[in-house]
């Protein structure tokens, strides 16, 4: 079992054979797909494909359960803001008027389109984070020759975030060890306590940052640049070969994207009018 950013993936998973750059490319490009696809049923299909890919990569499907509450609450928020907060629009088709709240067909339609656009984007991100380690992000960035400073700052941010999370656990325990019990207290109380956590986390980071900086300088790195004028070797890249498989996958992703754009703007396949689901729903709601 290897730990990825969002969970564990067994070592036999096929995902390890893929170059981190391809994984990053997948994330960046495929999460744009929904922007060009309007019919909700097609975006839903895209989400299903992503989930199947996750399953094929041996990501534990149980971890997906964590996201269910988030998916539901997000859907609720979207529906509510599009309906209850939708305002009065006489030019729209009214479905029903509940206690002064006007629920319009157009709003429901738009809400569904937005919701089903967001879902595949989220799951693409989850897919990426569940199958990548922190190192993969750094390898991906270095493969495309992003300036070293940027990748390094990014890596340090990851490291710092990890340390802060560890500290956070201990601070929580320390508070409880002094009788602090958030159970059954008001939400305001809980928010206030999270603010209080900031103080020791901040203090700890401050104290550490001095040693952290000293360690960096002692290893020959100052923020003004590198020590020597010679080109910087990227030892980390020696572990990752860009294979034929990677080239093929990159090609597929690129082609898929180009095709998507072509069909989107030439024919109406991915437009709203092409949807089957939307008219069906329209008939159901408005008779």
């Amino acid at each position, binding site marked *: 079992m290897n730990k990825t950013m969002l969970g564990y993936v067994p070592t036999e998973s096929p995902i390890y054979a893929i170059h981190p750059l391809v994984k990053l490319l997948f994330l960046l490009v495929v999460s744009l797909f929904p922007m060009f696809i309007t019919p909700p049923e097609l975006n839903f299909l895209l989400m299903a494909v992503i989930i199947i890919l996750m399953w094929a990569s041996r990501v534990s499907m149980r971890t997906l359960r964590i996201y269910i509450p988030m998916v539901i609450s997000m859907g609720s928020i979207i529906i509510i803001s599009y309906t209850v907060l939708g305002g009065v629009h006489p030019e729209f088709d009214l479905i029903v008027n509940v206690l002064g709240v006007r629920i319009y067909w157009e709003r429901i339609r738009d809400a569904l389109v937005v919701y089903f656009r967001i879902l595949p984007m989220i799951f693409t991100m989850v897919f990426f984070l569940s199958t990548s380690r922190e190192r993969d992000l750094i390898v991906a960035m270095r493969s495309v020759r992003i300036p070293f400073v940027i990748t390094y700052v990014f890596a340090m941010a990851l490291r710092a975030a990890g340390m802060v999370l560890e500290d956070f656990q201990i601070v929580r*325990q320390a508070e409880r*060890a002094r009788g*602090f019990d958030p159970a059954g207290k008001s939400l305001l109380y809980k928010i206030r306590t999270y603010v*209080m956590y900031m103080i*020791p986390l901040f203090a700890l980071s401050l104290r550490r940052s001095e040693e952290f900086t000293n360690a960096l300088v002692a290893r020959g790195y100052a923020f003004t640049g590198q020590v020597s004028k010679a080109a910087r070797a990227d030892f980390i890249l020696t572990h990752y070969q860009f294979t034929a498989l990677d080239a093929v996958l990159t090609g597929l992703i690129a082609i898929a994207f180009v095709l998507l754009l072509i069909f989107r703007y030439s024919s109406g396949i991915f437009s709203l009018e092409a949807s089957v689901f939307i008219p069906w729903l329209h008939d159901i709601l408005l008779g």
Partner: protein
Amino acid sequence: MADKHPYIQVVDLVYHYPDGTEALRGIDLTISGSEFIAFIGQNGSGKTTLSKCLNGLFKPTRGDVIVDSLNTRNTSIEQMVRRVGYVFQNPDHQLFNNNCWDEIAYGPRNIQLSEGEVKERVEDAAKVVGLPEDYFSEHPFFLPKGLRQRVAIASILALRPSVIIVDEPTTGQDAKQSLEIMDFLLSLNKGLGHTIIIITHDMPIVAHYARRIVAMGQGQIVVDGPTAEVFSQADKLAQTFIEPPQITQLAQNSAHLGFNPGTLTVDEMLTQYEGLIATKQ
């Protein structure tokens, strides 16, 4: 407080971390009033986990931890902290008030004491740790490390728990500071009757101050007994990668000459040497 009723009873305690790792694999332990115990063992042996079960921070996966006749499974945090206090290794993890007074008052306020009682406890605790009144309005962050540690201890003392667990009291301290903190803990134990449990790697300190050692390895108790007795069982301790203090090792290497394998201090060694020389004459 010198009663022999077990104050803490641990019965077949098993603890699993949320990700499933087994941290404690069946612990049985009894602690009575006014003991001075050292928990020792390699990293990952479970000493910190066990301590956090004792004060209710962790609830048992199986088995029971009974403190003052209360089962930690269904006792509120407020009730637990009045009985078992835990001082974390790095005082920075627990200092979040603007001044020392509020810092020490934080615990008593959490357990809903009246403001008058809080005042009494704070002043009392500050006096015991030797924190001068001029520091009451200082921000804890700016105090030197030694004082910060005292404020952290005072903040636990203010809860007046019978048992105080201190995580690594001497790490990063020099010899004098280590002795000061340990003498202070000893005064809490002998003078005020608290049971003190220290989690530590510092064997000479254990030899000088602890009267009982609980050595842990891989989630179980490897050996539990009076200090000299435990240190003389070098082979058992080796299982959990513990070595007795150097002077004890010297005594053990010289056991065939008549030295006691449970020797704890240089003084004891000297006395024995004098004794051995005398019998030769």
